[in-house]
């Protein structure tokens, strides 16, 4: 598990560097190209003078290409959880993601999921089943060129999970192995009605690959807020939170494919702010 985690992290570490640099160089090359015809409001250069004549406020007519910001709902699915089901027989899980653009930079974001995972540790084997929901927001820190819609975001989530644990078998730790190692003991004890809540700091990337389809991934650092533990056992795995450690710390990530459903558009024509009001103050 540890090595798998390490491996995954290093892959994403490398991937993140690639995506970041890809997005950095991309816009510089694309920049001089005019936006595509689908965004009608772009004013051709030839008509520019005319437009200025008809404009009501002469101060608005600075040579700026208007930017179309599309607002809407993006829904997606965590591909990592889906693919993990193919190769890990002890894991079943699905997570749907969604975000709704609130303003230019802010997105309301949520994840909802269900997991069924059997953890086989050296001394314990247990099955965790449960559902979770995470709600919060993302802040897009990436300044898009023209009609690009990529996202490099940081955000916060509040997560809540309701689940059950079943202890399948366990071993007794005996520091004086006089009687030899006692074989593991079957239990089957089920602990129902458990819950936990936590706060996540999310760093994520979403890139538009074509039309309204986005791929993205996010990395999450979690801190438990509440944790209702079973008697004589512990929540070693919490759906949505993942593995727990000695403290309240946790990590998570997802790899999503999502579809953007546009609802309305906002044209951004930057208004030149008159500098007069400032000296008055």
């Amino acid at each position, binding site marked *: 598990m*540890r090595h798998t985690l390490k491996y995954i992290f290093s892959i994403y*570490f490398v991937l*993140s560097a690639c995506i970041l640099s890809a997005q950095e160089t991309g816009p510089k090359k694309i920049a001089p190209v005019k936006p595509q015809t689908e965004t009608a409001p772009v004013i051709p250069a030839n008509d520019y003078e005319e437009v200025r004549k008809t404009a009501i406020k002469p101060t608005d007519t600075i040579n700026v290409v208007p930017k179309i910001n599309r607002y809407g709902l993006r829904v997606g699915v965590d591909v990592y959880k889906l693919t993990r089901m193919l190769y890990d027989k002890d894991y079943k899980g699905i997570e749907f993601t969604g975000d709704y653009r609130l303003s230019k930079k802010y997105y309301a974001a949520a994840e909802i999921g269900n997991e069924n995972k059997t953890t086989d540790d050296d*001394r*314990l084997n247990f099955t965790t089943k449960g559902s979770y929901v995470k709600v919060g927001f993302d802040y897009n820190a990436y300044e898009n060129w023209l009609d690009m819609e990529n996202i490099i975001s940081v955000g916060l989530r509040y997560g809540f999970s309701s689940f059950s644990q079943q202890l399948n078998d366990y071993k*007794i730790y*005996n520091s004086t192995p006089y009687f030899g190692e006692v074989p593991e003991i079957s239990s089957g004890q089920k602990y129902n009605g458990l819950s936990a809540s936590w706060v996540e700091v999310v760093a994520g990337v979403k890139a538009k690959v074509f039309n309204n389809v986005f791929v993205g991934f996010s*990395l999450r650092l979690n801190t438990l807020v509440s944790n209702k533990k079973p008697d004589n056992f512990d929540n070693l795995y919490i759906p949505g939170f993942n593995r727990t450690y000695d403290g309240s710390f946790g990590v998570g990530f997802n790899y999503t494919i999502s579809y953007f459903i546009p609802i309305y558009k906002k044209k951004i024509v930057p208004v030149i702010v008159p500098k007069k009001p400032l000296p008055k103050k």
Partner: protein
Amino acid sequence: MKKLILLIFAIAFTFSSCEKDDICDANTITTPRLVISFYDISNSSVLKDVTNLSIIEENETEAVTFNSSTLINGSTVSIPLKTDADVTKYRFILYFGSTTTPVANEDQIQFNYTRENVYVSRACGYKTEYTLDPANPFILTDGAAADQQWIKYVAVKKSTITNENETHLEIYF
């Protein structure tokens, strides 16, 4: 911003490789042993050292190792109890292996108890805690050879065995 994201990745990467809870820490209280203290029968408040005491479970051939020795010379010893049975019977052989005076003398004590498996941690799993049977905590008998019992009196000091910091059983000889 990019630096921040890289930093978060770097932190997560670091955390992923230092899971402290992988190994059961030696200081963790796990399955306790039964702690026995030896007292002088003629002066019951004074600890008395045993000489070359060997403690062997009835079905085992090796003696219990205490302080890296199977021969106990001292006034206290800790012995494990079975985690998968409610009875453990030990042979207490004083002057082990001696054929001259004082000659080896074997007594047997059977411990009766109840067990409870208590969760410790991911790395340690569970531990067993014992409670000596209140009605019949032990049965003291002479060994196979009908010599005099060297153990004169046994007393339960503490019937719940949850750690090794206290004496659970007192043996007077």
